[in-house]
């Protein structure tokens, strides 16, 4: 879906942050900010909720832990007990290392996969760059024009006053 955007570019993240605060004070909603590196503290200014991705690791890790323990118990105790040096079939403590590794492996892979899924990144996806250089040295503040309710002229003015380099309107798919 293509939408209409107002894009302001900056060369300096401090100026960008400043402009962001002004824009937010005037009750504009920020669509997103594009930058070559993560700017800390920006999430709250533009109202990004804290990600819930760590829960994926927690749930999958817990499941992997249970699964690995049960699997070893089933294999070593129920299905085919092996007598190795007279050790008990159910050597739970000896099952811990594999349980731990399985927890870490599946917990780690799951959050990586969940991240790619949530951020809609996949191999070969055509990149949608709002302006050139956002992966190099340009910071772009983007407002979305949903209806006529947003006063673009006012927004432009505010951005200009607060050190935006280039301000342009653009139709794009982000």
């Amino acid at each position, binding site marked *: 879906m293509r939408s209409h955007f107002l894009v302001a570019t900056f060369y300096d993240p401090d100026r960008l942050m400043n402009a962001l605060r002004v824009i937010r004070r005037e009750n504009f909603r920020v669509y997103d900010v594009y930058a070559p590196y993560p700017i800390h503290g920006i999430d709250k200014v533009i109202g990004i909720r804290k990600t819930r991705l760590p829960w994926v690791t927690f749930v999958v890790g817990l499941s992997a832990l249970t699964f690995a323990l049960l699997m070893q118990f089933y294999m070593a105790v129920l299905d085919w007990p092996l007598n190795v040096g007279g050790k008990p079939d159910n050597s739970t403590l000896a099952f811990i290392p594999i349980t731990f590794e399985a927890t870490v492996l599946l917990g780690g892979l799951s*959050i990586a996969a969940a991240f790619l899924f949530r951020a809609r990144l996949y191999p070969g996806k055509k990149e949608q760059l709002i302006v050139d250089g956002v992966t190099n040295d340009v910071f772009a503040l983007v407002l979305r024009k949903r209806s006529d309710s947003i006063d673009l002229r006012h927004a432009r003015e505010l951005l200009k006053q607060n050190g935006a380099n280039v301000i342009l309107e653009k139709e794009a798919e*982000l």
Partner: protein
Amino acid sequence: MSAVPVTNPSLSASRRTVEPQTLPLPRWVDGNPTLGEITDDIAHPLEGKPGKGWWICFAIAFAALLNLGGMVTWLIAKGIGVWGLNNSVGWAFDITNFVFWIGIGHAGTLISAILLLFRQQWRTSINRSAEAMTIFAVLCAAMFPGIHMGRPWDAFFIFPYPNQRGPLWVNFRSPLVWDVVAISTYFTISLVFWYLGMIPDLATLRDRAANKIKKIIFQVLSMGWNGSQRTWARYEIVCLVLAGLATPLVLSVHSIVSMDFATSVIPGWHTTIFPPYFVAGAIYSGFGMVLTLLLITRQTMHLERYITMRHLDKMAKVLMLTGMIVSYAYATEFFSAWYGGNLYERYHFINRATGPYAWCFYLMVLGNVITPQLLWFQKIRSSVAALFVVSILVNIGMWLERFVIIVVSLHRAFLPSGWGMFYPTKIDIGILIGAFGLFFTCFLLFIRFLPMIAIWEIKGVVGHGAHKMALSDDRAEMEASHA
């Protein structure tokens, strides 16, 4: 920023107050490169033609790799009798190399995960190459148990898969099984961590690629990354979670490797100190190898601006610390052997220091006990040449440590009638050299085709006003609200 302590002369000396000071932020990149210049500097070696030095190194490494291929083929065709193994010494160069390479693989995760959790900014210049090194080292390590099996085509038997032999499952009480699981997990998680960390940089390279084929490759690899802060916010949390997972993982891997030895009853192996001792040794040897590689790449690829003397100094200090932990473990081993009163254990340690392999022991002490002490001196920590020599000595010392633990313990275990000597054959030595060939071939290809310094992380610690990246979110906000 740098407030001078102010004293109020009107107050009496006893009530004198000193205003809190803010220390200047450490600078981890020399000069004041702009964000664009950082990209240019790091992408430059990937875009030009490699120099003569690279080709010479590559030719040597590749020749060693070809040699590895030939040696391994010969080994598999003839059986492991072509090695110098015998009834007394059933593990020698193969397992020594295995433990050595796994140890090398530990520094990468330490730098990228543990130092990330500790918010150490200096890691940003070295984490990418250290992570790559981890992956290549684990690759080398994983090869050795495989070829040591004698029937490598049956290697998959070690995994508990439903089979038609019962199903007969693997023995989950065996550290050798834990080892396989731990190393596969470690390799997978390191690879994911490394690749995920590289996605933003691959996008940067994609957007500046002049060549069409390069552009397509980077396009596929960078997964459509566009620098959105929403994605960045999630991305950083994901990296943090992965670091949190990788930290206990890295400690577990070498602990489990050490249990291959510690759970047996051979004198010299049967000690409870092994897990922490092996982990410290792994970090020590890993840092030694990181230092060797970084010093070479720094000098040949002119990255002095990003890998500064201050980075080398920090690394030397970590090397010194872990070296001293290793030395302490050596001393504890000897003390326990004497104090424990077990005759076999006591004989083993006397034999270690005076027996036929004593020269290995003393070379090991030179590399791992004496060498790290040199790093007390600022003169040595600030000299590239001296650090290079130190790092090579560390590598040699740590290889010998594993040789001493494995071969010296086995060659005279309990019954004198079972004593013997181990002498490496040409194939042993060829495979030792070949593993270095595999490692360096991979590493040279890496520095040629992928960004060896994390571009986005460097920008984060250098960028204008971007020092906040290293601070916690709360502090960044506090600073922002003061501004």
